């Protein structure tokens, strides 16, 4: 498979001279389409920073990022927004649903700037909610859903534009292990349907589903392992 993500000498430094914090130091790696990469590392290692850079939410202070053939450094603000919409699906630890919208409406949010009939949008949203196992709960508010269900809504929302890459920052961090397992099953099945998945996680159990693991330490790659099968042993860490 082609490299869908290409990272070369990427560094990220936050803040000005006085309060500088270097989150990434010259990261380089490539990810092929269809990989399921788990990113591990201690708190502060730079995992979230890496994900936001891959997702086009911020631009690294140095280095090249090319995703799906698009060189991110050269993109204007609108181009970046279009890139995020078309290429990236984000899933956050805290779900980040809009609390005043129903499940269906939350899934429709990424479509709202589009000139498509409301009915078509609703149908698309319902189909996505059905795909993540939430049929019948379309009209519930986030406050009326469990944590796992909220995360399913967030996953459905990330799939609206059928992006090739899913970026998930500790998607099971707020869930109990059984519910977390179900969410991981969902990611596995999306991976099975061809999505490239990058998931930040603390949980070693999550490794069992991945095809590759990258461990960060102080903004550098400490370890980069590929597993022959996705059923690699969890002892790998």
């Amino acid at each position, binding site marked *: 498979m082609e490299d869908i993500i290409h990272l070369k000498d990427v560094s990220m430094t936050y803040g000005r001279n006085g309060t500088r914090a270097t989150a990434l130091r010259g990261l380089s790696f490539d990810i092929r389409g269809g990989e399921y990469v788990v990113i591990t590392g201690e708190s502060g290692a730079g995992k979230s920073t890496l994900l*936001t850079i891959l*997702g086009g*939410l*911020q631009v690294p202070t140095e280095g090249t990022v090319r995703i799906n053939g698009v060189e991110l450094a050269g993109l204007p*603000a*609108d181009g970046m*927004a*279009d890139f*995020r*919409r*078309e290429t990236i699906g*984000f899933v*956050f630890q*805290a779900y*980040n649903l*809009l*609390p*005043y*919208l129903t499940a269906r*409406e939350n899934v*429709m*949010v*990424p*479509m*709202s*700037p589009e000139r498509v009939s*409301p009915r078509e*949008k*609703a149908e698309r949203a319902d189909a996505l909610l059905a795909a993540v196992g939430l049929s019948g709960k379309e009209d519930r508010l986030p406050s009326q859903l469990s944590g796992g269900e909220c995360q399913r809504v967030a996953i459905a*929302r*990330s799939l*609206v*534009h059928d992006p090739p890459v899913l970026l998930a920052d500790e998607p099971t961090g707020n869930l109990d292990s059984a519910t977390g397992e179900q969410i991981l099953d969902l990611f596995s099945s999306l991976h099975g349907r061809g999505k490239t998945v990058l998931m930040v996680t603390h949980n070693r159990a999550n490794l069992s589903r991945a095809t590759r693991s990258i461990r960060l330490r102080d903004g550098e790659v400490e370890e980069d392992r590929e597993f022959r099968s996705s059923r690699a042993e969890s002892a790998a860490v």
Partner: protein
Amino acid sequence: MNIRKLAWKNLLRRKSRAVFTGLGIFLGIATFVAISSITSQMEGAVQDQLDRFGANIVVTPRTEQLSLGFGDIALGGTEVAHSRLTMSDKERIMSIRHRDRIRSIVPYLLTATDASGKNLVWMGLPGADMATARPWWKINGSPVRKRGEVVLGAEAAAALDKGPGGTVSAGSRQFRVAGVLAPTGEKEDGMIIAEIADVQSLSKRAGGVTYFEVAALCKDCPVEDIVAQIGQALPGARVSAIRQVVESRKAAVDQLRRLGFGVSAIVLLIGGLLVLVTVMGGVQERTGEIGVLRAVGFRRRAIFSLLFWETGWVSLHASFLGAATGIAVAFLASPSFGIGNPGIAVSPALLGVAAGLTLGLLGAVPPARRAAALSPTEAIRSL
């Protein structure tokens, strides 16, 4: 779900903030509409009062001044003919181009003659014109309604020791006292007011007129033009605008209007600032939410329009409510401003709605820019 609906949902969720955002606009527009509709109606009312206050042009013969200065030799034939005014000059005045602006022409004849043994000044005018020409006269009794009746000035009544129902003799004629004027502080206090035809016959000047008072309808009144035209129609007459009346009238109306606009402008400005502050606060509060929208691919323009729709909805509602309230307030308050029959001032209301919307949207510009410029990561971190 589209941007408009998203904006609407967000408003519903933060109702009290929305109400607060709209409050400034609401108060501003209500004040603006109330004040400008009161002032515009007051302009009319003041105008009416001032117009009713009487004449603003006086037509007198030129004779005296000219004969004093140059002697009769200097005067041409026509001018000599007009050196005394007569009743028929009314038609000449009425023939000017701006005749439609003339509300009334009242002839007066003054003559000093005997009244029950005392030498008093008689003022003749058409009895029917008394109420319009001197609306401020308070008459104890009734006005002059027909020939043979007189109204006595307060001092004249005292001098003659007569009251309503009494009689005053002049030569061989008897006049019934119809009423007595309350003191006015003017010269008419010492006069006897009668039907002009009676005074003409007493002074043996059939058709004679001492001066005309001309009242022009004066909304944006071209008084100077009217004066000039009457001057042309009556070459022998001296036509003067009572400048003071005209100018003070203008000044009063202008002052009202300035006051109205000043107050409304200040309140509207405050309303706009309130929008800015509350919407800015809302953006701050919603950084996370805006970050999510950026993360799912909203362009900056979409964020912009989201905030504009929100303020747009609020401003529109607030403006309409404000305009309605302003109209209601103006309507209820108009009696205390001396407006007899209040109407609905449509143009201030429309202007108010437009101004409210504009201000609301203007107030939303800085926060919208700020929201669109928010870094999505910062936003997401803040969640």
